[in-house]
């Protein structure tokens, strides 16, 4: 079960600031879901089960050809010099 402390930790590793209302509401909402998915423990399974679901041929790669983008630049924080601006590290 998730406590308020654990919720704050999950929010921290997920990089999301929660509001007071969310800190209040989320533990009981999330715990209902966790209680439900807990039944997976009862699944009759063993480690020999193959986990690859699809037969996908990943060998087929496209040729490495440089193409010119004809779209508008989508990088909104680009400087005039073409650098991406981010917040200060420290």
């Amino acid at each position, binding site marked *: 079960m*998730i406590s308020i402390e654990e*919720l704050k930790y*999950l*929010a*921290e*590793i*997920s*990089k*999301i*600031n*929660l*509001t007071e209302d*969310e800190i209040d509401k*989320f533990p009981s*909402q*999330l715990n*209902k*879901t*966790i209680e*439900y*998915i*807990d*039944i*997976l*423990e009862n*699944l009759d*399974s063993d480690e020999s*089960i*193959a*986990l690859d*679901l*699809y037969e*996908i041929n*990943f060998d*087929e*790669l*496209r040729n490495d050809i440089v193409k010119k*983008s004809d*779209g*508008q*630049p*989508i*990088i*909104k*924080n680009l400087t005039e010099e073409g650098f*991406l*601006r*981010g*917040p*200060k*590290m*420290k």
Partner: protein
Amino acid sequence: MAYEVVEGIKDQQFTAEQYVDSIIKRIEDVDSKIRSFITVDTEGALSSAKIIDRKIKEKEEMGSLAGVTIGIKDNISTKGIRTTCASKILEGYVPSYDATVITKLKQNGAIILGKLNLDEFGMGSTTEYSSFHSTHNPWNLDYVPGGSSGGSGAAVAAGECTVSLGSDTGGSIRCPASFCSVVGLKPTYGKVSRYGLISYANSLEQIGPICKSVKDAAIIMNIISGKDMMDNTSMNSTPIGIHSKLGKLNIAIIKELINGSDNDVTRTVYSASEKFRDIGYSCDEVSIKNVDYALPSYYTLASAEACSNLARYDNLRYGYDFPIEEYKWDAYFNNVRKNFGQEVKRRILIGSYVLSSGYYGKYYLKAKMLRSLLKSELLKLFKKYDLLIGPTMPILPFKIGEKIEDPFKMYLIDINTVLANLAGIPAISIPVGFSDGLPIGLQIMAAPFQEQKLIDASLALEDIIDIQRGPNTI
């Protein structure tokens, strides 16, 4: 119907421009009540229509979907038209490229009309989790249209576009198709390229059509399917024939899905199965052993994938106006990501939880094992039966606001649809009846790449039960 529009324009009964004009007028008349659209591209649609009319005049090739107006779920990238995923975090995002499905539709003369509402990033079953507005069910405006492709379902039912595209991660095409009395098809995983579909849970989702007729669904599928070098999980497959007539098929009703449904839904689905018997199909009942684990497995995997896929929203490369000055590294990201809606936050947090140290084996690995077991079980059944059927949704559409305060209750209504996503198999929802004026859909599932069987059975049923596909009152 799409095929009637193409014929009408080809035979010069009306021009593409006249048709697009009439659809835009329809949107202006009804969308203030239905609220299917996030963005309507009136100018772009009219300009595409003029090109088609010119091609007809000059006897040029006009494409097999010429003049067909298509609404696109707003998580599918459209070059030059903003694509928001119904999220504030992508409010101003305008893609610089088209998704492969959009390129293919345009090449065939289809007209992109605009972008349709959804639950934020596809997470929900009602469109109430859209950050912009809820969509209303055209059959009763107080009710939800289903979701997450609720805008796509409602717009088709209300006549605001000829056909639409949705995406289906755990039922998001079939649920609104069922709730709005239209046809919705989730293809086999890999049949349609996902390039340009903004990821929520990429091992589960597929793009597919929502239409007023089964024939339209087959036509759209044949355009959008196929191997795409931009999506390594896509594959080539046989086109769907409209008049294939595979003969009499063997069908089985999945007991667990019908037993847990509302009485009116159960009655209507049994009555549809009787119709199959009337036309010479065999119809048994079967049980699926692992069905109880399907939904917990789905929410584990979908949340884990969402947590990873949505980590990219850092607001630096695209996003909304939130200056970087004044903030340090982590504080900036934690603050901008506040803009996700509550349901998205809940799923990211659950995803972080099930993937965290000590829990991976308990949840994620078990969920993956269930996927394999379920797929094997279903494939075994498909050796004996051509199709498995049941209600698309276990309940009738419900009132807007009725379940919003209890997200867990909302999850439970996806119980019938998640099976197809977990196993990667195709599934269709077709209208089979009404209860108190609210639509009921039948779900039909087939083995991987057996869409032909889905279409054959659906066409056969459509021939004998004529269910209304759009309300007269709107």
